[in-house]
C-alpha cells in the first residue's frame, strides 16, 4: 500500500516536473516576450509622443474638442493619452502573444479574437476623433455664421449642429465596434428623427417670425429697413 502511494506520488511529482519542464521554456519565452514587449511599447510610446508633439496633435484635438473633454475628466493631454493608449495596447499585444505561446487552447482563441478586434477598435477611435473634429468645426462655423447674420440663439444653433453630428458619429462608431449594432441603428434613427422633428417644431412655432423675416430677407429685396443705414466698409 505505502509503496503504491509513494509510486503514485513519485509518478505525480515526476509528471508535474515533466509538465513543468515541458511548460517552463514556454513560460520563460512568455516572460521574455512580455519584457521585450514592454521595451518596444515604451519605445513606441516615446517616438509617437514626439511625432504627435511635432505635428501639434494637441492643437488638433483642441479643435476637435477632445482636449476639453479630457480636461473635464481630469485626464492628461491628448498626446499623452494616445501615447499611453498605444503603449498599453502594444504591451498587451506582446503579453497575449506570450500567452498564446503557452499553448492553452481556449486562451489562444481569445487572443486571436482580441487581435482581430484591434483594427476595428483603431478605426472606431479614428472615426470618433475625426467626427469630433468635424462636429467642432461645423459647430463653430454655424456659431459664427449665425452671429454675423444676426440670427437669434446662435449658441443653441451651434449646439444643435454639434449634437446632430456627434449622434451620427457615435452611431457609426458603435456600428464599427459591433456593439449592439441593431440597437444602435434603431436608437440612432429614433434620436435623430426626434431631434429633427423637435427642431422643426421649435423652428416652426417658436421661430415663425424669424422664419418669415429670414425668407423675406432672402427673397424680397426691398426690405431696406434693416440695411438702409448699413455703412460701406470699403
Amino acid at each position, binding site marked *: 500500500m505505502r509503496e503504491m502511494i509513494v509510486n503514485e506520488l513519485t509518478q505525480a511529482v515526476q509528471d508535474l516536473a515533466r509538465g513543468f519542464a515541458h511548460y517552463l521554456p514556454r513560460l520563460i519565452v512568455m516572460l521574455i516576450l512580455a519584457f521585450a514587449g514592454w521595451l518596444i511599447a515604451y519605445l513606441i510610446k516615446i517616438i509617437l509622443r514626439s511625432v504627435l508633439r511635432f505635428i501639434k496633435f494637441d*492643437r488638433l484635438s*483642441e*479643435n476637435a474638442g477632445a482636449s476639453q473633454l479630457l480636461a473635464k475628466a481630469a485626464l492628461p493631454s491628448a498626446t499623452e493619452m494616445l501615447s499611453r493608449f498605444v503603449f498599453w495596447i502594444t504591451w498587451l499585444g506582446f503579453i497575449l502573444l506570450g500567452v498564446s505561446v503557452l499553448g492553452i487552447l481556449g486562451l489562444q482563441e481569445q487572443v486571436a479574437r482580441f487581435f482581430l478586434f484591434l483594427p476595428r477598435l483603431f478605426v472606431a477611435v479614428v472615426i470618433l476623433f475625426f467626427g469630433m473634429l468635424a462636429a467642432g*468645426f461645423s459647430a*463653430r*462655423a454655424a*456659431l*459664427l*455664421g*449665425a*452671429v*454675423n*447674420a*444676426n440670427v437669434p440663439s*446662435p*449658441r443653441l444653433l451651434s449646439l444643435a449642429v454639434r449634437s446632430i453630428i456627434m449622434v451620427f458619429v457615435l452611431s457609426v462608431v458603435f456600428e464599427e465596434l459591433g456593439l449592439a449594432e441593431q440597437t444602435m441603428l434603431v436608437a440612432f434613427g429614433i434620436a435623430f428623427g426626434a431631434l429633427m422633428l423637435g427642431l422643426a417644431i421649435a423652428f416652426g412655432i417658436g421661430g415663425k417670425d424669424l422664419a418669415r423675416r429670414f425668407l423675406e430677407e432672402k427673397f424680397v429685396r426691398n426690405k431696406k429697413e*434693416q*440695411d*438702409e*443705414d*448699413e*455703412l*460701406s*466698409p*470699403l
Partner: protein
Amino acid sequence: MEDGNFLTDDFLRQLINVGEVDILVGLPTHNNARNVGSIVHTIRDGILRGFPRERAVIINADGGSRDGTPELITSVSIDDARPASSVYALRTLHAISTKYAGTPHSGVALRTILAAAELLRAKACIVMSPESESITPEWVSSLLRPVYYDGFDLVTPTYRRHKFDGLLMTNLLYPMVRALYGVRIREAYMPEFGFSGRLGSEFLGKNRWNDGIGENGIELSLTLAAVTSGFRVCQSFLGKKDPVERHAADLVPTLRQTVGVLFSALESDFELWSAVSGSKEVSTTGSDQELVLDPLRVNRKRLREMFVRGVSELESVFQSIVSPSTMSELKRIAGLGEEEFSYPAELWVRTVYEFAAAYRKSVINRDHIIQALAPLFRGRVFTFVVENRSGSANDVANNIEGLCLEFERLKPYLLEMWKSKE
C-alpha cells in the same frame, strides 16, 4: 507663357486681332447691366480725350452675366465696319469680352485681364470698377498718366468721400498696411487702379494661381506685391466716390478679400515688414481728399448690439484668438451702456494684431478667425462714428492719423507675438 492655356480659344483669337496696344482698360463684370453702359461710354471718352493717338483696347472679363452686360461693353468699340458711329476717333478702338471659367470671382477676372495685358504687351493698364457710378472721363487719365508718362508701376486711387464711407479702410487696412509695410497708401484695396505692364507680368508669373490665391480679391495682393518688390507706387486723386449699396451680409466676404488677404500676406512678407519702421508718404497727384460731411443716418444701435452679441456668443471662439487681457476688456466694454460705450484705439489695435498673430498660428480654422472679426469691427465702427459725428474734415483726418500712429506704436507688440512659439 503658361497662362495662355487659361484663356479660351475665342478670346485668344480676339486678342490676335487686337494686336499690340499701348493702353489696356480692364473691366471685370458680373450682371452689371444697370450701370455699365454709361460707365463704359465714359471710359471710352476718357481714352479718346486723354490718349487719342495711342493704341487702346477695352477688355471685359465677365463671370457669366445673363443681363446683356458684355454686349453693352462691346458696343462701344470704334471700327470702320460700323461707320455710323457719331464718335470721332483717329484709330480703331476694340472693346472685347470674354467669359472666364468657373464661378464669378474678381480674382479670376483680374487674372484674365493681366494675362491679356501681357499678351498684348500693353505698356499701361487700368482696371475700372463697373460699380463706380460717379466716374468721369478724367479718371482714365488720372490713373494712366503716371504709368504711361511718369514711369510709375502702380497707381492707387484716392477719393473725396463721406467721412463714414470706407471705414474698414480707414480703421484697419490703411493704418495696418502703413504701420507694417511703411507706405501710406490710402486705398490699398482698390476697385480701380492703374498698373504698368512690368508689374502685371511679374505679378502674373510670380503667383501660384492654383493655390487658390485668385479666389479672394487679389487687388490687395497686387498692392503689397508692388510694395515688397520695389515697384514705384503712387496715388492719384480721382474724384467723388459715392458709397456703394451694401447689405449687412456683405461684411464677411469683404473681410475675407481684404483682411484675410492681408493676414496671409504677412506670413510671406515677414522679412520685409519686420524690418520696416515708421512710414513714408507716397507720391500723390491730384487735389484735395477733403471728406464729405453731409449728415448720414447710421444705425448706431444695431452696430453696438451686434458687437455685444458677438462678444457674448463667440466668447469660446475669442478665447482661442485674443489674449486674456484683451478678452476681459472686450467683455467689459460689452457691458457698457450706449452712452458710455467706447472701443478705444489702443484696444482695437491690440485686437487686430492678436487676430493677425492667431491667424498666422492657425489656432483655429483661418476663415473662422476672419469671420470672428466682424462683430468686433462693428463695435469699432460705432466708436468711430460717435467720435466723429460732428467733427470737421480736419478733425476726422486727425482722428485717423491718431489711429495710424497707434498702429505704428504697437507694431513691436505684433512682432513679439509673431516670434513667440515660432
